[in-house]
């Protein structure tokens, strides 16, 4: 025995466990357990009479009926899920690239060159956080309406001013995604760029690199982890987005995977398929999520 029966130190441990318990229980019951419920619904059947789904709780008895239905809707003829998946990837990919292209220069500027006005710029960058998502989308809906400012501005310079921007255009949806998620990206990039030690950049200049070269050969590599983290924080939620499309377009031609899931949940008898689709989305996202989680957990442990 190592003689570890220290009552004082043992009691201390119980305290920490006790503190963590409520949160732990809440997480387990309301975060982990729901996914078990989702699995059971996905692997369950349908009550033909009520057209409701009947979950099967025993993992050994899970059926693949819903799974095959979903699969045929992805790859079979008349499939509507497949295109939605593809579209989701394209939209989020373009939106992510655009966001990065906009966010990086802004974050770079504010973190390194803003000088005395840094606080002011930060306030302006953080402001969208405090403006609800609804409000921000609403703002664009107002502007992009028929007869709204945007169309009026276009016609005032001679361009056609009667496009129905909100009637099912991919451009609008992508714009909505970028506008909605870019504040997160900017702040994450800002935090990371701010943390870069200025003396490293000075050293590069001192050793003969021009400003441009310093940027590419020192700043960008140093900020790579931040870029990756920021991209994750932006892209992962974006993939599950359905409301942006709903607000900005609401047309079947621009549906994303999130809309499909939503639709299936609301349709009678298709809840099981909705569950399957959600699980498929979860599995696809699991790998980047795990990567993010592990690198975050490792990073926080390094500091401890």
């Amino acid at each position: 025995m190592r003689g570890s029966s220290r009552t004082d130190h043992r009691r201390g441990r119980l305290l920490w466990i006790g503190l963590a318990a409520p949160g732990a229980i809440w997480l387990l019951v309301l975060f982990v357990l729901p996914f078990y419920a989702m699995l059971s619904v996905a692997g369950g059947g349908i009550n033909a009479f009520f057209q409701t789904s009947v979950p099967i709780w025993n993992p050994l008895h899970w059926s693949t009926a819903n799974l095959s239905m979903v699969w045929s809707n992805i790859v079979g003829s008349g499939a509507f899920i497949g295109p939605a998946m593809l579209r989701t990837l394209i939209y989020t990919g373009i939106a992510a690239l655009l966001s990065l292209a906009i966010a990086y220069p802004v974050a770079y500027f504010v973190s390194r060159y803003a000088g005395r006005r840094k606080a002011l710029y930060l306030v302006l960058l953080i402001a969208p956080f405090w403006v609800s998502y609804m409000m921000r989308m609403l703002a664009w809906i107002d502007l992009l309406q028929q007869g709204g400012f945007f169309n009026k501005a276009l016609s005032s310079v001679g361009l056609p001013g009667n496009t129905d921007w909100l009637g099912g255009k991919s451009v609008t949806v992508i714009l909505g995604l970028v506008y909605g998620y870019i504040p997160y990206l900017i702040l994450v990039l800002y935090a990371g760029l701010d943390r870069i030690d200025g003396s490293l950049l000075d050293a590069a200049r001192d050793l003969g690199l021009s400003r441009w070269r310093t940027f590419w050969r020192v700043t960008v590599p140093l900020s790579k982890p931040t870029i990756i983290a920021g991209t994750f924080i932006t892209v992962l939620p974006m993939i599950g987005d359905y409301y942006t499309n709903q607000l900005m377009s609401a047309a079947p031609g621009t549906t994303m995977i999130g809309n499909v899931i939503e639709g299936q949940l609301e349709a009678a008898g298709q809840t099981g398929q909705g569950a399957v689709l959600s699980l498929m989305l979860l599995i696809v996202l699991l790998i980047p999520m795990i990567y993010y989680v592990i690198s975050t957990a490792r990073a926080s442990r390094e500091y401890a």
Partner: protein
Amino acid sequence: MASVIGEPVSAPAAGAVIERRRRPLGNPWRRPWGLEGFTVLYIAWSILPIAVAVLFSFNKGASQATWQGFSTKWYVGGWIQSVANNPELHQAVIQTLRLAGLTTVICVPIGVAFAIGIDRWRGRTSGGLNIVMIFSFVIPELLLAVALFMLVTQLLTFIALGTTAEVAGLVVWNLSWPAIIVRARLVTIGKTYEEAAADLGASQLGAIRRVLMPMLMPAIFASTVLVFASTIDDFVIVEQVSSTAATQPMSVLIYSNVHGGLQGPALNALATIMLFFSLVVAVIGYVAYRWMTRGERKAGATEALTSIAGM
């Protein structure tokens, strides 16, 4: 001898230094106008639409696009469509505040305790719980909302759809805010202060109460502010597990009425109210944070701002 452009050089006669000509734009200390302009443009693009939307909530007419004069009729006044009078709108405001209040009051204490417990409790279980918590931070809200819906309707049916389920879901969704922010702060604080307190006679609980809590106050406050603002805005989970119209907060109401339904500017009015609440909370949070950290060296405007935003 070539001279530096723009600067007369009074060169001594013998052994003088030859200055190389500098390119006009080659000043290495010049201010990056391009970047700054780009940033300003971004900020304008980011904020102006919101200003316009707020503006239209004061529109006299029913249009969200054409300005027809100033009026507060969407907010107050005898008109049925105003927020003050329309029961549906009215109810939504109250529900938003109720959800935000309940969630914050439950989520922050649990989250703070969780952060402290996980930080001190070394072990695989705590590491696992931490990972679960980070997952809840990074997962798309839709997936969690769907899963919660199924949980509540199929498994734990004693949790009724409506406010109860909404609060339960919101607490779980927002747990990561206090957990991560307080945890980060804990790591910075370190164990030394509690050791000092124990050395001077405090029990473990006493050290937490008298030393750790005061030092965590800024982080706790920042997470309270964040949770509150996040729930005011939340919509995915709430929509999924809501039941009747009475349990719909402002965010859901706006969403369901955007393509028809309520008059346009009414929605703007609702959104502006949401904005107002969030801003009030943000300002209180910022001021309080600055006040609370007035004894510490590092705290400044930028520190406060980034903390409030969750960095």
